[in-house]
């Protein structure tokens, strides 16, 4: 017996150094039950974080550094996001590279927000790449051929969002907003698709476009948050030494948050031309906003826009 008005519950958490808000809507579940489902959905964030954080000396990814040259069996919480990141590295010929951890530390991105402690990997060379990491699908092992600080910042949060989404499928509608990386499932309480704004990269509090989506992820990478305190002009995305202008932000719509998360970062790194080609090749839609505030999109982007 469906209830007249759908119950709607939102809870907010801190995970992965950001605010994660989860909203659940249902005509068939009591508010308390929606609340419990939301609490189940937040758990993957802490589990993925404990395995994939490069900021904690006791994380699974960090402990790999004690076993350089050995094949180490790892949990699926680490294996799958790492495998995905290495695939994107392969597709982009290493322009997107999860082996940038050491360089990120030197840009000042070295503090674990949970402990306040700084981490530094002194004996790690700067010139390592994703090719120094080998995976074995059958035995689920990771081998570091040289000491590599692996940074899964572009995939782990997306993976956690996707895991959280699997916990909420029975609801009529839900949204997981992990600090601006969003998965919107089902429909709003009024039966319409969720309306998602794209943040203006230079004017805080303003948006530049509105999407109407259902059962899709929307992730944005940008140069305007998490700036380096060490190197002026540098942000948390390590850009290669290439000519041309880098986008101020790239937003990607994809079926999975892990795809949208990784591909928005990869497109930032590749720049406008190669980035757009990458998104087209991967079958996802994207919006590029350049520093002069000019914009361009992939071919089917308008399918999702709602003015």
């Amino acid at each position, binding site marked *: 017996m469906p209830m007249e008005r759908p119950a709607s519950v939102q*809870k*907010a*958490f*801190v995970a992965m*150094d950001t605010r994660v808000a989860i909203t659940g809507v249902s005509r068939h*579940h009591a508010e*308390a*039950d929606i609340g*419990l*489902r939301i609490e*189940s959905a*937040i*758990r*993957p964030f*802490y589990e993925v974080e*404990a395995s994939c954080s490069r900021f904690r000396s*006791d994380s699974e990814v960090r402990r790999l550094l004690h076993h350089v040259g050995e094949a180490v069996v790892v*949990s*699926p919480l680490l294996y*799958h996001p790492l495998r*995905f990141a290495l*695939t994107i590295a392969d*597709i982009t010929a290493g322009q997107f590279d999860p082996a940038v951890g050491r360089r990120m530390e030197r840009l000042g991105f070295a503090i674990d*927000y*949970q402990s306040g402690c700084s981490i530094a990997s002194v004996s790690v060379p700067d010139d390592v790449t994703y090719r120094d990491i080998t995976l074995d699908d059958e035995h689920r092992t990771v081998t570091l051929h040289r000491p590599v600080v692996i940074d899964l910042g572009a995939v782990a949060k997306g993976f956690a969002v996707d*895991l959280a989404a*699997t916990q909420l499928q*029975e609801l009529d509608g839900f949204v997981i907003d992990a*600090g*601006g990386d969003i998965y*919107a499932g089902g429909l709003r309480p009024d039966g319409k698709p*969720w*309306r998602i*704004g794209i*943040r*203006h990269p*230079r*004017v*805080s509090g*303003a*948006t*530049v476009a509105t999407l109407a989506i259902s059962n899709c992820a*929307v*992730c*944005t990478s940008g*140069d305007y*948050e*998490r700036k380096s305190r060490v190197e002026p002009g540098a942000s948390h995305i390590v850009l290669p030494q290439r000519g041309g202008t880098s986008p101020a*932000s790239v*937003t990607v719509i994809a*079926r*999975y948050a892990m795809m949208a998360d990784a591909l928005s970062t990869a497109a930032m790194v590749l720049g406008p031309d190669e980035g757009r080609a990458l998104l087209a*090749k*991967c*079958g*996802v839609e994207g919006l590029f*906003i350049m520093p*002069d*505030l*000019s914009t361009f999109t992939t071919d089917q982007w308008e399918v999702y826009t709602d003015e």
Partner: protein
Amino acid sequence: MWMAKQMSKQLIAMCTVALGAMYAAGYAVTAQSADKPVVGVPSGGSGTTSRNERPASTHTTNDTATAGNRETSRPKSTAKYIDGTYQGSGSDQIGTVVVSVIIRDGKIAQVEITQCDTHYPQSDIDPVLPNEVIAKQSADVDFVSGATLSSYAFAMAVQQALDQAQNPNDKG
């Protein structure tokens, strides 16, 4: 060179496999309640319906009688944190937040924001923007996608709560 369709399919398949692997490993905690949605249960009365704890194989503090009670639980294990619920607060230029951290089996189970009084500054930038991008107020949207926010207030609140949860037996 990869074909476009093929690459899209491969990436989607990898995501599907990743989620399936987690389900197989027992991470899909609500799976058992999949076919019994709670209909019309008075709020507050459904507390146990969908709460499925992780399999008992994960290490516990062997202290079930006092789990969740900070005053009486003893740090027997070498887990990093002692089970219980801890509060912490933090503030910065955008405001103040209060968090409630739940430690279960020596690990962080959730960090809920229980109070949030933050105001992200509205920009005073000249309203005349280049006409390529039309800035709009975000009032008519449900959520906003942007580069990942981070806040010192959140970190401070989490650190304050976790300081209290610290297990003195932990060597790490």
